[in-house]
């Protein structure tokens, strides 16, 4: 049948010359696209439908709260002081309030991806039609695993995705309403809502990414995508440059298309097109000769470098200072999203020429221009015309100025005290007085680029500019290679690795994802990724982390993307793309259950999550997570049974889900082989935890990859890495090894004697059932238990 959901505005119809009077319009016609599987118990789940699964998870991984503030100030009954058992005017207590704040964060995060997806999809449907097929090529049949799993449909076209989003939108609104004053009185129920939002987030991200992949013909899971250029060294470009900052690639695509149409060649020929943050990933997925500057932490510095001749911002990971900073270097500024219109005049109705001339010579420093096609023309023309005028005007001080600026520094320490990661800015600036710029240069690598030190300094010391000057020579060399985001994992790859992952023979899938709020620079992410790829884990990555990983060379001068393959295989390093591509990482876990283990997906969330928790040794590492989006992504992984490790800043999310190895009851599962309740040891021990530093993270990664389903051989391999890392870092055997070894055969050969003697010492006994068929959920267990 031909009816397809259509999203439209009445206005667009009428402006297309159609009178609504004449039309019989079917909007939102949905058919059940294909009944490929029996329907599971929870298609399009409402808040309470997966509550029992959440409560199971939360029973083992209990919420652990660290309030970020003693007050609540969310309504005019407040502020309410919630310290030490006191309750607010609405009756809420502190743990519940923390759950509520987590829900709010996840709601904002999920809304951000969902609204991004909606905006993207509306536009793609308008451009390419609602019946644009979702076809990811012959190697991908399970096109949208999150969508199949949660919504229960197998979407065929872009139009189908519109309904998926409507469901997500409805549920977001349902959930956010619970943060109103006076709703939930239980932190567990708030956490269940946060988990709900996290799950929805992965659906929304999947919609956003699949829509752009099929419409813009991005790579469809190709493991061998090209290498693009990345790095701050791009400040050196001499050609006119358009810089895009944000997350929505639509505008970047329009620009590339405009250049193609107008014989302006590829990026790099006449004009440079460069991106910062996720939009950078996505532009290179469309056109690999576009360039990537780097993660969010480079925004202010790169703008100040003056390299950009037009700056376009859309939404999400953009600094509020972009307009102010652009003005400093006379870079014309175009805001294209109504999510961040910056109070600028809406020039949609102006002719292109008028906008361009206003921006170039007319004294208008910025405009709001939500018409993306027009914005593309304006950006290209503005960049071309403004480049000769501004001549890469920058605000980096001369070397002479450095000491003048530094001489005013009183070493008062306020800059440091206002730095979110407590960097010793004061020492670095002060030591300039003695002509020593090395400390500042070192800061350049660690700095988040937020500018808070500058706002605090009584002398308004331009700390970021000083850093850039101090690190100038190094910055110019900062040119690396990054493998273009490939999108989803192929079904064929899943078939190859499904068994070794589930049996534990591939020691784990480690996903380095998320933002650049790193405690000590991006280098640490690169080092961790390299370590685990070398250990032949499957390493996946996305977003800012994928960029940080690129910015590093090994002993032979190779960047990680040159050192490792792009295949989803042991020892592979897989860049899936921008942040919304994170859905392919959760998707891969889901596909393992589906393709390898033949578990049905359709509306069958609990079963699949139970499968992943018990069988898929995957762990996420969001080392620099800063945002509400990161909160919801991580929480979505958690509901699916994937543990997440955060860097130290992660404590400020104010909630962890922690297991306790000594709580045997919670680490007990149903064994479908014997029908018995079996203790499984603390595996995985936590669902989300923030660790203090990289060393702790490395050990934690190896440990959280363990799963109850690991075979003897698999467990031996995983324990090898765990013990090896542990010994390197702590100088001794893991203290919990006796909780993880089930039989002698599990013990890594290299450490056999040592481990055996430890086990003997602590009175370890071989487990009765070294191999089980584990289920945490009783419901799912019942489905698979054939005995009793």
């Amino acid at each position, binding site marked *: 049948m031909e009816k397809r959901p259509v999203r439209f505005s009445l206005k667009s119809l009428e402006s297309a010359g159609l009178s609504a009077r004449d039309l019989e319009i079917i909007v939102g016609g949905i058919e059940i696209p294909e009944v490929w599987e029996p329907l599971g118990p929870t298609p399009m789940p409402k808040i309470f439908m997966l509550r029992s699964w959440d409560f199971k998870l939360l029973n083992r991984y209990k919420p*652990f*709260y*660290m*309030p*970020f*503030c*003693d*007050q609540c100030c969310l309504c005019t009954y407040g502020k309410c*002081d*919630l*310290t*030490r*058992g006191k309750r607010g005017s609405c009756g809420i207590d*502190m*743990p519940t309030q923390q759950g509520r704040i987590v829900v709010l964060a996840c709601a904002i995060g999920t809304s951000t991806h969902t609204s991004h997806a909606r905006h993207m999809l509306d536009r793609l449907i308008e451009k390419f039609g609602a019946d644009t097929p979702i076809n990811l090529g012959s190697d991908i049949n399970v096109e949208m695993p999150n969508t199949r799993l949660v919504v229960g449909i197998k979407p065929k076209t872009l139009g189908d995705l519109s309904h998926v989003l409507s469901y997500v939108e409805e549920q977001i609104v349902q959930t956010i309403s619970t943060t109103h004053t006076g709703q939930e009185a239980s932190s567990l129920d708030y956490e269940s809502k946060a988990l709900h939002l996290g799950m929805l987030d992965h659906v929304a991200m999947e919609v956003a990414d699949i829509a752009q992949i099929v419409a813009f013909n991005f790579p469809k899971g190709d493991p061998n995508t090209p290498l693009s250029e990345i790095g701050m060294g791009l400040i050196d470009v001499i050609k006119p440059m358009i810089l895009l900052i944000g997350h929505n690639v639509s505008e970047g695509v329009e620009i590339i298309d405009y250049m193609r149409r107008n014989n302006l060649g590829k990026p790099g020929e006449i004009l440079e097109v460069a991106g910062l943050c996720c939009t950078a990933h996505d532009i290179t997925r469309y056109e690999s000769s576009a360039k990537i500057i780097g993660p969010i932490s480079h925004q202010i510095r790169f703008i100040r470098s003056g390299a950009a001749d037009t700056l376009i911002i859309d939404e999400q990971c953009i600094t509020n200072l972009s307009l102010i900073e652009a003005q400093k270097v006379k870079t014309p500024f175009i805001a294209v999203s109504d999510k961040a219109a910056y109070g600028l005049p809406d020039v949609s109705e102006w002719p292109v020429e008028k906008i361009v001339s206003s921006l170039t010579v007319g004294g208008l420093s910025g405009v709001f221009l939500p018409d993306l096609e027009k914005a593309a023309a304006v950006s290209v023309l503005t960049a071309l015309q403004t480049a000769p005028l501004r001549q890469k005007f920058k605000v980096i001080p001369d070397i002479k100025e450095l000491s003048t600026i530094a001489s005013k520094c009183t070493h008062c320490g*306020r800059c440091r*005290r*206002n730095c*979110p*990661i*407590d960097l010793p800015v004061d020492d670095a600036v002060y030591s300039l007085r003695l002509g020593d710029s090395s400390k500042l240069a070192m800061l350049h690598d660690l700095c988040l680029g937020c500018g808070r030190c500058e706002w*605090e300094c009584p002398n308004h010391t331009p700390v970021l500019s000083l850093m850039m000057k101090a690190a100038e020579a190094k910055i110019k060399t900062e040119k690396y290679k990054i493998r273009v985001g490939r999108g989803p994992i192929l079904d064929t790859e899943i078939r190859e690795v499904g068994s070794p992952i589930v049996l534990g023979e591939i020691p784990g899938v480690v996903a380095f994802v998320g933002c650049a709020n790193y*405690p000590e620079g991006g280098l640490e992410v690169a080092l961790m990724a390299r370590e685990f790829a070398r250990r032949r884990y499957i390493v996946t990555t996305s977003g800012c982390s994928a960029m940080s990983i690129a910015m590093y060379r090994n002993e032979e001068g190779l960047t990680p993307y040159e050192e490792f393959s792009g295949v989803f295989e042991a020892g592979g390093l897989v860049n899936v793309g921008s942040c919304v591509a994170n859905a392919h990482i959760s998707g891969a876990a889901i596909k393992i259950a589906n393709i390898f283990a033949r578990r049905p997906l359709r509306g069958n969330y609990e079963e699949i999550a139970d499968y992943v928790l018990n069988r898929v040794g995957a762990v996420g590492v969001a080392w620099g997570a800063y945002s509400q989006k990161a909160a919801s992504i991580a929480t979505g992984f958690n509901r699916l049974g994937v543990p997440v490790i955060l860097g*130290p*800043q992660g*404590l*400020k999310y*104010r909630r*962890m889900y*922690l297991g*306790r190895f000594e709580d045997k009851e919670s680490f007990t599962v149903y064994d479908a082989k014997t029908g018995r309740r079996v203790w499984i040891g603390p595996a995985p021990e936590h669902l989300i*935890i*923030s*660790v*203090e*530093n990289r*060393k*702790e993270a490395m*050990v*934690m990664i190896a440990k959280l990859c363990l799963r109850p389903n690991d075979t003897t051989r698999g467990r031996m391999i995983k324990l090898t890495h765990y013990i090896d890392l542990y010994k390197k*870092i*702590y*100088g*001794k055997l*893991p*203290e919990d090894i006796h909780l993880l070894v089930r039989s002698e055969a599990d013990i890594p050969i290299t450490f056999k004697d040592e481990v055996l003697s430890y086990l003997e010492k602590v009175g370890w006994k071989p487990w009765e059932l070294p191999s089980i068929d584990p289920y945490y959920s009783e419901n799912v267990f019942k489905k698979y238990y054939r005995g009793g």
Partner: protein
Amino acid sequence: MAVTPWQLGNIFGPRVAIQVKGDAAGRMIKAAKHPLLISGGNALKEMVGDKPYIEFIVELLKARSMPFIATGATYKDFVDRGLNPIKIMNAVEVVDRLRDSEWSIDGKDPHDLVVFAGLSYQYLSQLLSCIKHFATHLKTICLDRYYHPNADLSFPNLTEEQWIENLKLLLDNVKSR
């Protein structure tokens, strides 16, 4: 002017730490029945004069024997200095258990005082917040150079010299009889 935390944005209240000097801190630690010391990864990086902070912590532990945990993967560094941390745990994992008023790291009497040293400012701030709200049976004291409003007792923000002096005073008081 009210005391301000080290990190300017890091305001807490109405319950904030009492500011103490080294002598009072020392007496407090000495008098505690069953204190626990949690030392973090910054103990290696932060300098007390020309020695890393960990040297002071080691000296304190030698002067006042108490169970201690080396977080931030500093276990080896204590062992190298002849001390054996009681367990290897992440600081979050310890604080999680500290909420149980019956729990102690050594399975003996519950702790009455937790001494923190060498964790990064914001990381520790959050952990202290958890204890302040949810482990009200515990007192906490922080020996770092910077004022921590979420503790029960903390040094004020100190210059390096003042800090050295206070740490010395602390040791003197712990050692005195």
